[in-house]
């Protein structure tokens, strides 16, 4: 059992106030999460005591910072059960990780007429880089449709797979619907036609433990700030043989072994993909975040969030006029909804006045909005530090807000 009150004490931002000094209820965790003091203090102490550039200095601080930075790589290797440290690349976030793959792997291995499959519920960051690849190579972009519950149509997916399918790039957990996709099965099916699979685990990393070897994922991307770590840092996991075969994404310092004006020899993995001074403090902070979630234990976190989902579904269903978007059998603690014909932005502003931070808009998933024929939804997304009491208060606030429009 999680001691939620104790956990909440680890997150100073939960004690902050919303607009007009209202006590804050933070329900925007799919956008970004709060950071525990363990992350904040490690980042802080790095800047106070161990500031140095990494991989370059012979001096003490540089060695300490390098060791801390590299120990985060090992933490992530373990977190995803990757085979080797060469397979963990630090980037600035999920977006950059996808761009890295689309650019480097894509331009080397994708030819005109090859097919890349994504889905209707992708975040824009898993759509646009592939459209850019299409521009550059003439490849074909195919889209797996979803049903009105916000579940992928797996029959249609089957039909899209052909011997020309080279990449399946798919969201693990949808940020706008909360759907958990059957990615393990989909990976198998994509592999059967010889495609490589990229998992967008930006939301998935806080939903369930991921074992890249057991799942046989070829690439996986995530952002530190969505797993209680700092902003500006993310991860690309890639199978070593794939990363080995890929050309560098950016050129600069750290990614080279030797440079002359005639010839440059690239550094080994993972440094080949980490050009320039990285977000050192961010990576170190991410290490503390991974330690934090690992220590909580997946079983308890998943059980608690299941209870939050059930409770939220119950109390919100009682709000007059509410309509949910994303009612998949398998879903996480994301409630996307509209109420009658009240525009989500009006809901968002009025809830903000009551101290509730939610997200309203298209959540960077415009094709999802188009599917449902709506411009926007209101979205409450919960983390393990949220409570049933907050959900009760939220449902009450919604009812109050509706009255304004009557």
């Amino acid at each position: 059992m999680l001691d939620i009150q104790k956990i909440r004490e680890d997150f100073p931002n939960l004690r902050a106030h919303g607009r007009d000094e209202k006590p804050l209820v933070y329900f925007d965790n799919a956008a970004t999460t709060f950071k525990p003091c363990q992350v904040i203090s490690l980042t802080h102490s790095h800047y106070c005591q161990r500031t140095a550039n990494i991989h370059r200095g012979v001096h003490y601080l540089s060695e300490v910072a390098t060791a801390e930075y590299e120990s985060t790589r090992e933490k992530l290797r373990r977190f995803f059960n990757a085979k080797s440290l060469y397979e963990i690349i630090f980037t600035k976030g999920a977006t950059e990780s996808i761009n890295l793959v689309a650019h480097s792997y894509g331009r080397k291995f994708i030819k005109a007429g090859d097919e890349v499959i994504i889905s209707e519920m992708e975040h824009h960051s898993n759509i646009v880089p592939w459209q850019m690849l299409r521009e550059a190579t003439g490849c074909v972009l195919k889209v797996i449709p979803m049903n009105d519950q916000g579940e992928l149509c797996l029959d249609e997916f089957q039909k899209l797979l052909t011997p020309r399918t080279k990449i399946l790039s798919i969201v693990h957990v949808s940020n706008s619907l909360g759907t958990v996709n059957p990615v393990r099965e989909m990976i198998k099916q994509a592999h059967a036609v010889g495609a490589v699979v990229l998992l967008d685990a930006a939301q998935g990393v806080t939903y369930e433990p991921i074992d890249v070897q057991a799942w046989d994922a070829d690439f996986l991307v995530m952002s530190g700030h969505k797993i209680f770590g700092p902003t500006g840092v993310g991860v690309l996991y890639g199978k070593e043989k794939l990363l080995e075969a890929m050309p560098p994404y950016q050129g600069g310092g750290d990614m080279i072994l030797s440079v002359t004006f005639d010839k440059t020899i690239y550094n080994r993995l993972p440094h080949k993909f980490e050009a320039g001074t990285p977000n050192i403090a961010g990576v170190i902070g991410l290490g503390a975040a991974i330690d934090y979630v690992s220590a909580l234990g997946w079983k308890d976190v998943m059980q608690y969030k299941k209870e939050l989902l059930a409770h939220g579904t119950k109390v919100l269903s009682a709000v007059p006029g509410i309509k949910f978007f994303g009612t998949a059998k398998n879903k996480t603690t994301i409630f996307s909804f509209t109420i009658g014909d009240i525009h989500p932005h009006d809901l968002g502003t009025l809830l903000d006045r009551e101290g509730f931070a939610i997200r309203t808009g298209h959540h960077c998933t415009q094709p999802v909005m188009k599917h449902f024929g709506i411009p926007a939804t209101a979205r409450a997304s919960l983390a393990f530090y949220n409570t049933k009491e907050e959900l009760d208060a939220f449902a009450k606030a919604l009812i109050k807000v509706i009255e304004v429009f009557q």
Partner: protein
Amino acid sequence: MSEHSDELYQQVILEHNRKPRNYGKLALSTHEAEGYNPLCGDHLFVRANVNAEGVIVDVAFEGDGCAISKASASLMTAAVKGKKVEEAKILFEEFRRLVLKEIDPDKDPHHLGKLTVFSGIWKYPSRVKCAILSWHTLKGALDKEKTVSTE
């Protein structure tokens, strides 16, 4: 609701949201533009019929949006109908300055009338665009621009 909600969602705004004035198409229009706010998906058309003397004899809007954008469009059409194009442009400028808190409606001279219900919106920077979308679109129509975006 909380004691503050009347600052932004005042009765005038809620009422114009419920029953927007000058909503729909015009039988005859000389000017038209489409306005789009990519952030929220607010999307509207503004059409105007300007006569030879430069008077906006009729104006209407149509589209989807939040209460703020709809009420603002509705109030705007009511405010500019019968005005000269130059007067409407002056109102646009005053309204723009109002929502950015560049003028104080209680102290500075202006012609805003009822439009001052939006004076509190500067506290919600993310909503300023909702209020000003219809005005940008009207100005676009009068300047013969076809599409207008708040981004």
